[in-house]
Each structure stands twice: as C-alpha cells, then as structure tokens.
C-alpha cells in the first residue's frame, strides 16, 4: 500500500487549507471538535443496526453487558471515522460536504486524529473481548481495519468499486451485535450484513450522482466520475434488483415476522420504483456548481437521485426497526421455509 507523497498532497490543497497552520494558531480545539472526528451521525446508524443484531440473536444477556457491547461498537465506529479523517484530510479539504471537518478546517492536527483513532480502536476491541467475547471483538477489529486501511487507504483512491467493497465495513455491525450477544454468527446474522452490503451501492451512488463534481475535483474515482452517470444509473438499478429479494429473505429464514415482510415488500416496491425513475432520468448529467453545501440541494434532473438517496435511508431504517420491534415484542417469525439449523 503506497500513500501518495506528502508534497503532492499539500500542493493539491486549495488556498483555504494552505493557511491551515495560521488557522490552527488562532483556533483552539474544543472537546466537541474531537467528537466531530468520530462521525456521530454515521455512528448512530451503526449503533442502530448493531443493536438490532444483538436483539435478533434472542440470547439472554445482562442489560449492562448489552449496553457495553453497543458502546464498544459505537466507539470502534468512531475510531475508524477518526482514522478516516486523518488520512483523507487532503480529499476532505476539497469537497464542500467535508471541508468543514476538524482536520481540514485546521482545528485538530492530523497526528492528534490518528492518535485518537488508534487509542479508541484498542480500547473498544479490548473491552469487547473482555466484557463479551473474542468473536465479537475480532469482528470489531476486522471492521475497523477494513474501513481504515482497506477502504480509506486503498480502495477509495484506486477503484470505482470503492464503496461496493468498502461497504462491507458499514455492513458488519449487525453481525458484531449478534456475536456479542450469543458468541456465534449464524447465517441469519450474515443475512443482515448482506442487506446492508447490497443497500450501500444504490444509496451512495444516488448521492454521488449529484455530488460527483466534488469527487472529481478531489480526484476520488467514484462511479459517476469514472464510468459516467448513465452507467451509474444502470448499476444502481441492478443493485436495487438484487437488494429487494435479499430484504424479503428474513421472512423465509425464521428471522422476520409479518410486520417485517410487509415493510420489506411495500418499501421494496417503492425502492424499485425510485431506482427505475433514476434509471430513466438524466441524473448526474447536468453541469455546474451546486448552489450551496446542502446534501439536498440538487441540480435540475437529479431530483430522482435525491429521492432515492433519501428513501434508501428510510427503507433501511424501517427494515431494521421492524425486526427490532418484532423481536422486542416476542413476535414469532414467519419461517416460510423449513427451519435450518445453520440459520440460528
């Protein structure tokens, strides 16, 4: 793995960040800036999916230990966020969405972000191993390394498939939660991982269709930058077609009940409809800067991509919320297929 040379990285920075040292002298780093390093919004989704995995394991666990498991997963996710911000400061400085992050904004030095990321990684994995079990700790360690090293340092800058493969890191939390509760990771846990894994490409590519100029400017080979908008729209539709049957699968494997099946089916139809509209649209083809920094400020023709992006978040949230509600209420799963031991 080869990190781009430092001189090149500094030379590519826009004028705003060339005065980083000057800003650093004037702006003291607050504790809240360090919290921002942990990407709290990403952390909230990770916590939610991990907690769902933990509850779906249907294994009695002391509430305090369950809370520690969720805390470890949250801190591990935060640690990988800090490592990502340390390494990607040059890219972040060039994109509207990310240039206000603490490192490119000059509030926190890169070395401090690195130290925080490594420290929290070690603490979260060790505590998970000691308090719960070493399978969950191992999966957590793998997730952190996969996100910080494989995705951030390698895939993100080198291939248009970056978020497809790297999406595995974001998909693993339900399996970690399941393993933390039961000490095992059966096929049903990996089914939850597969749902998030297949959900990631349509979700991210819908976003990148209307932010691709930022990625192009930063030299990140996102799919619309490398293959063009039309190819990206086709791939979004293809992944959506693959995603919906997988989302329905838990109703057949003894994991999801009637509420889950209804949410997965009705939401899945909407998802496919929106993906179809993206396929038929001209999303990602309009040129010119966006008006402001908002994620939802889109150019004409990209509204369909924005709608899919927004609905994808809602769909995943509803799927996991349905599973969580069913298992919390003790509702029996449907088991539309004969029970298989490897699924439990």
């Amino acid at each position, binding site marked *: 793995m080869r990190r781009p040379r430092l001189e090149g990285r500094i030379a590519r920075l826009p004028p705003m960040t060339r005065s980083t040292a000057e800003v650093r002298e004037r702006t003291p*780093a607050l504790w809240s800036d360090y919290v921002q390093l942990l990407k709290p919004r990403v952390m909230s989704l990770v916590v939610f999916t991990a907690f769902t995995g933990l509850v779906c394991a249907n294994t009695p666990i002391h509430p305090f230990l369950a809370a520690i498991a969720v805390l470890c997963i949250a801190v591990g996710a935060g640690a990988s966020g800090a490592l990502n911000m340390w390494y990607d400061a040059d890219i972040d400085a060039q994109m509207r969405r990310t240039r206000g992050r603490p490192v490119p904004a000059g509030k926190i030095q890169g070395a401090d972000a690195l130290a925080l990321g490594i420290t929290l990684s070690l603490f979260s994995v060790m505590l998970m191993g000691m308090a719960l079990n070493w399978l969950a700790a191992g999966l957590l360690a793998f997730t952190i390394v996969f996100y910080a090293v494989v995705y951030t340092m390698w895939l993100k800058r080198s291939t248009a498939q970056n978020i497809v493969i790297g999406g595995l890191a974001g998909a693993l939390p339900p399996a970690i939660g399941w393993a933390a509760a039961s000490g095992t990771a059966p096929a049903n846990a990996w089914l939850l991982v597969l749902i998030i894994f297949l959900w990631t490409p349509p979700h991210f590519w819908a976003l990148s269709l209307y932010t691709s100029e930022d990625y192009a400017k930063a030299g990140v080979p996102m799919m619309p930058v490398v293959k063009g908008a039309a190819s990206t729209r086709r791939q979004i539709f293809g992944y959506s077609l693959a995603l919906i049957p997988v989302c329905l699968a838990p109703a057949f494997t003894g994991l999801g009940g009637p509420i889950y099946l209804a949410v997965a089916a009705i939401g899945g139809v909407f998802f496919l409809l929106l993906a179809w509209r993206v396929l038929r649209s001209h999303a990602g083809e309009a040129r010119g800067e966006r008006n402001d920094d908002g994620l939802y400020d889109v150019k004409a023709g990209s509204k369909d991509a924005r709608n899919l992006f927004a609905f994808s978040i809602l769909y995943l949230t509803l799927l996991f919320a349905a599973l969580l509600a069913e298992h919390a209420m003790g509702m029996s799963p449907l088991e539309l297929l004969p029970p298989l031991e490897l699924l439990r």
Partner: protein
Amino acid sequence: MSDPKSESEAFARARRGRNIAIALGLVAFVIIVFLVTVLRLGANVANRPL
C-alpha cells in the same frame, strides 16, 4: 489582529474543556471495567462446581 491575552485565555479554556473530557472518559472506563469484572466474576462464582 486578535488580542494575544484573550487568545491565550481561549486556549486555556479549550485545554481545560479537553482535560475534563479526558478525565471523565477515563473515570467512566474504570467504572465500566469494575462493573464488568463484578458481573462476569459474579456469574462464574455462582456457577462454580461445589
């Protein structure tokens, strides 16, 4: 140009805030390890062969 005195006060305040956050984090970690030890040890003591 900002006033150097108020600037150094801002830095001192920020450093104090960071130090308090680190202290609270460490205290929380110690309490967590203690409670986890009690829980895990307690369960094993209760389940030991007599």
